[in-house]
Structures are given as structure tokens and as C-alpha cells.
């Protein structure tokens, strides 16, 4: 399918594809097994300028948008959904600055992120605040020129590895959701430490860690936007980042399908390649069609978002939900086509299945996405 990408988008796709094929695919299983953060690959991605595809040129980026980020994430995810996440999660941590940062904050943080010299992370989730983000307990108390942060964030992607953190904390608990604010924190700030590193089912090359704030003193200049904007920052950030999760999902699905097609052509049973059996053919056909539909939805969503359209929550949620559901289904089918071999860790497809699952859960579970979509539908019907 030709998605009529422009010259620069084709360059991004080809370069990301080359890195995925030559540098990531050969080491993906090893990083998965060791649960190690892939710094050498991150360095390669940094040198290739891919960390800056969605960042404005004046801040050292390439000047693309959500579509460029999606293209890049998809290609990298074909080789490893865990390694690609170092880049996608940095984008998630960076969008609050892009969307709500003042020029000073952008000048300070974006160039290093665009060059891949610093990774970023976004921190909203807490032990008791997942889908119910309104119940976060981390507090930020104003004291003179500073805010004092106390609390714990959980399951933070890039946690411990990133240098820049955008953190949601309550500045005024009495106001509920309207009492949240977002702050830019830097690794090494006094009172900012890291807790447990999680052991996960999939995306094991990605670091997922607890952030602990103990009387952490954050300068007033690090407040994003103004007090009380926290949830708006978070929602607008997710609107921009969810197509990236969708792209990660579709990349994982495509990676699994590519292996499945190749295996089906070479695996012989009953004296012939299993790809000659209609049962396998129908599975492959369904997998490919679902992937293409997901990709088409993602690219359309990205183009709409990059056009500057206003109401993007619905399309963004649709892309994330649909693509991640496709990824889980397709990767399970890929394991099925591999049969017993598919279940073995010596073969690549079970990893795709494990990596796919998280895309239905993070950046809002797919049930939350359905809430977002339904609420938008109802709102539209009232117009």
C-alpha cells in the first residue's frame, strides 16, 4: 500500500528500517533475555537524528510531526517493540514540553532530547492511580521559588535511564482533577530517587521503574503551563502520543507476520510447504488485512493531528485501540502458524506476542480508549 509519504518521510522510513534490520534485529532476543537497557542502540538512534523527527527544527529536530514519529516507531518495532519504546516513551515525556512549555523551557530541554543526548519519560501512574488518574497522591507544595514534591510514581517507562521527567502532581487536592500540575524534573535532583525495576512479560529491553520523590525541591521555572493544567496537559499529550503506541503495535504485528510468512513457505508437512494449505493461507490473509487496516487508520489519524485539527482525542484513541487489538491477535496467530516452534524462546515469534500485549494496556487501557471514543461520539451528537 502506498501511503503517499513525502521525500523526508521516506528518508525516515528507510533509515529506521535499515537500523532495525541491521542493528536491532540481530540483538533483540539478547536484550529481551537479559532485560537490559539497549544503550548502544539508543546511541545509534541518536546519531541518526531519529530522536528529533517530531521536534521543531529551531530546537534541533527534523521538524516533522506525529506521522514522522509513527513511521519511525513502526519500523523500529518490526525488529523489537522493547527497543523502539526508548524512543517512543521519550516522545511521550517530551510532548508536555512541546505542547505547554515556554520558550525558555523548550530551549533548555528540547535540543538535547532531539539529539538523543537525553531521554525523557512521562510520569502520571501511581500504585493507586491507573485508569483513575484523578486519584493521584503525589503532591507539589509551593514554597517560595520552589515546589516541594512528595510521592511515588509507578511503572514509568525509561525510568532511571531518562534524564528529563515530566511529572504530574497535585498542587491543590481540594480541586480534584483541576488541582493537578505538571513539572519538569531532572535526574539527580535532590530528593528524586528510583525504586524497583520491574520484571515484565514483554518489552523487556525497556526500563520500567518506580520514581520516588522525598521533599524533592523543584524550581518554579519548571512548572509547565500553569497550576491546575495538569490533566489538560496529560490528555493533550496522550492525544499526540497514542498514535505512537498504535505504530509500535502495528510494527510488532508486521514483524510477526513477516516471520510467519517466511516460516510457512519453508516449513514442510505432509510433503509440502504449509503455506500451500488453505488453513494457513486464510490466517496469513486475515493477519495482513488487519495490519493494513490498522496502518491506514494510524496514518490517517496522524495526518489529521498534524493538520492542526482540534478534536483529535477520538481518532487518536481509535488508532491506539484498533492497532493494539490487531497486534495481539496477529502475534498470537503468528505463534500458531509456527506451531510448537512458535512456543519456544529459540524462535522469534513468542517475543512479538509478549511485546504486543502491553500496547492494549499502557497510555490508557483499551477500555479507557473506548470511553474516550464513546464520550466524543455523544458530545458530537449534542452539537
Amino acid at each position, binding site marked *: 500500500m502506498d501511503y503517499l509519504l513525502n521525500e523526508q518521510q521516506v528518508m525516515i522510513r528507510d*533509515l529506521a528500517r535499515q537500523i532495525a534490520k541491521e542493528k536491532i534485529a540481530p540483538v533483540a532476543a539478547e536484550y529481551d533475555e537479559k532485560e537490559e537497557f539497549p544503550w548502544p542502540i539508543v546511541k545509534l538512534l541518536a546519531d541518526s537524528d531519529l530522536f528529533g523527527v517530531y521536534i521543531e527544527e529551531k530546537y534541533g529536530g527534523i521538524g516533522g510531526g506525529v506521522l514522522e514519529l509513527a513511521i519511525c516507531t513502526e519500523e523500529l518495532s518490526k525488529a523489537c517493540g522493547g527497543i523502539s519504546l526508548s524512543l517512543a516513551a521519550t516522545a511521550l515525556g517530551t510532548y508536555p514540553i512541546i505542547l505547554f512549555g515556554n520558550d525558555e523551557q523548550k530551549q533548555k530541554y528540547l535540543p538535547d532530547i532531539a539529539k538523543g543526548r537525553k531521554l525523557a519519560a512521562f510520569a502520571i501512574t501511581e500504585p493507586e492511580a491507573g485508569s483513575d488518574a484523578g486519584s493521584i497522591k503525589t503532591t507539589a507544595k509551593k514554597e517560595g521559588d520552589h515546589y516541594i514534591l512528595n510521592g511515588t510514581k509507578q511503572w514509568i517507562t525509561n525510568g532511571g535511564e531518562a534524564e528529563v521527567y515530566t511529572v504530574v502532581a497535585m498542587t491543590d487536592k481540594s480541586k480534584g482533577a483541576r488541582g493537578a500540575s505538571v513539572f519538569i524534573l531532572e535526574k539527580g535532583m535532590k530528593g528524586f530517587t528510583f525504586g524497583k525495576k520491574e520484571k515484565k512479560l514483554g518489552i523487556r529491553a525497556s526500563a520500567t521503574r518506580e520514581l520516588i520523590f522525598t521533599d524533592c525541591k523543584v524550581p518554579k521555572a519548571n512548572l509547565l503551563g500553569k497550576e491546575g493544567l495538569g490533566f489538560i496537559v496529560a490528555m493533550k499529550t496522550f492525544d499526540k502520543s497514542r498514535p505512537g503506541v498504535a505504530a509500535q503495535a502495528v510494527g510488532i504485528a508486521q514483524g510477526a507476520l513477516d516471520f510467519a510468512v517466511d516460516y510457512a513457505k519453508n516449513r514442510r508437512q505432509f510433503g509440502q510447504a504449509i503455506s500451500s494449505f488453505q488453513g494457513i493461507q486464510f490466517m496469513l490473509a486475515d493477519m495482513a488485512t488487519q495490519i493494513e487496516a490498522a496502518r491506514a487508520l494510524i496514518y490517517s489519524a496522524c495526518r489529521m493531528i498534524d493538520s492542526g485539527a482540534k478534536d483529535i482525542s477520538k481518532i487518536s484513541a481509535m488508532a491506539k485501540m484498533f492497532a493494539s487489538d490487531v497486534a495481539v491477535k496477529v502475534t498470537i496467530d503468528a505463534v500458531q502458524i509456527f506451531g510448537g516452534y512458535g512456543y519456544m524462546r529459540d524462535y522469534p515469534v513468542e517475543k512479538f506476542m509478549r511485546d504486543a500485549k502491553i500496547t492494549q494496556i499502557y497510555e490508557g487501557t483499551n477500555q479507557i480508549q473506548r470511553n474516550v471514543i464513546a464520550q466524543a461520539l455523544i458530545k458530537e451528537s449534542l452539537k
Partner: protein
Amino acid sequence: MKIIVCIKQVPNSADVKIDPKTNTLIREGVESVINPFDTYAIEEAVRLKERFAGTITIITMGPPQAEAALREALSLGCDEAILISDRAFAGSDTWATSYTLSSAIKKIGSYDLILCGKQASDGDTAQVGPGVATHLDIPQVTYVKKIEEINGEKARVERLVEDGYEIVEVSLPCLFTVVKEINVPRLPSLKGKIKAKAAKVAVWNAASLECDPKRLGLEGSPTKVMKIFNPPPRKGAVKITGEPEEAVDKLIELLGKDLPR
């Protein structure tokens, strides 16, 4: 430091097949790439530029589509690109090619160092680099695996030989052909690609070079290729099957037969 890198565009050797009827390379539909050995020359030039500053001029002789190889080199950090292209160059052997390249280098004028890959993956002759140095009457070191020291006047390099390496000192300007042991080539960057896309590639034809037209192309090529063929498969391999213990006995028996007693 002023560096010139000579590269060649070749068919991607992973895709190459030979037509069994004509015994020639099937070039249709095969992707063209920079000769893999030349990528080490480009990388070494970029590293030298990063250390000592200067400029890198990349040149190639080839058809108009060889411009793609030059743009790729530009995206990796080279500064200027020259495509040496003319129907008059068609059919050049290594002698005519090295003469043509050296004529272009004379036109460029001053330089400190010329870098080439040790050979091209399609022709495998390893003659063009040394030929260029000979035509230019400058020193050459082939199979360079490490540049130990280099300044404006001389260089000390390690040169790969069959049973180790030699350390050679050479005065500049000179020409090196490099082997893959010398470095790990970097990947292009997006900004490099964007810049390369917009860069101007100069095209020089035969008339623009000060050279003897009789020494160009087919006419200037003493080499005549009579036949290209696949070597016949080797015969005589024995496959030993069966249980390991039996197979080992059989192997020992067979080995014993060939041993002088």
C-alpha cells in the same frame, strides 16, 4: 587536510546472479550500492576530517545513476561530489579507469590524501587504486588496516599482509587502499541525508578533463575479457551416514586409506 575518496557503484552482491547461458552478471532489477570496501574509505576520511578538520571530495566514474552513490557518501559527511561520466568512458578496464580518475584528480588540483577501498566487489581486481597512484606518480600503500599517525607531511600506517601486518611510513600526498579491519562505517543521519539531497553534484565529461581521448574507454583498455564462467563444482566429497560410532569407524578407515604408510 584535503582528502579525495574514489568510490564505485556496484550491484548489491547479496543479489547478484549469473545468467547460465551467457555467463554474465544479471544486472536488471539488482539494487545498486556503494562498493562495500569503499564504505571503509569514506568512514576513514570522515574520521580524519573530524580529527584534523578539512574537506572530503568524493569522486566516481560511472553512468548518471552513480550520482546516488555520491549522494549517499555526502550524507555520511563528505563535502563535495564529482561524477565523472561520459559515453567515452564506457568499456574502460582498470587501466583506462585509473587513468580517467587520475585525470580528474589532476583537475581537482591539490590534496593530501587519496583513499580507495581495497577492491570492488564486482570486478575484484584491486588494480584501480594502485593505478591511480601510479598515474599521479605519488606513493601508495595498499591494504591499510590502521592509520597510526598522520600529519601534513607523512603518515605511519599498518598494512595487512597474509601472515600479520607491516608498519609503513610514507610521505604525503599519497594514496591508501583500505581493508575492512580499519573501522566500522557509521550509518547515515537524517540531517546528513537531507543535506545530501539538496547538495550539488558536479558532472565532468571527457572534454572537461585534460586527457588523451585514445586512452579512454574501450579504446584505451588493453584488457579483453574472453569468457566469464562459474568454476566447476568440486567433485569427490563423501558423505558418511549412520550411527555416530559406525560413522567414526568409517571415517577412520577412509582417512587411513589416504595416509602414506
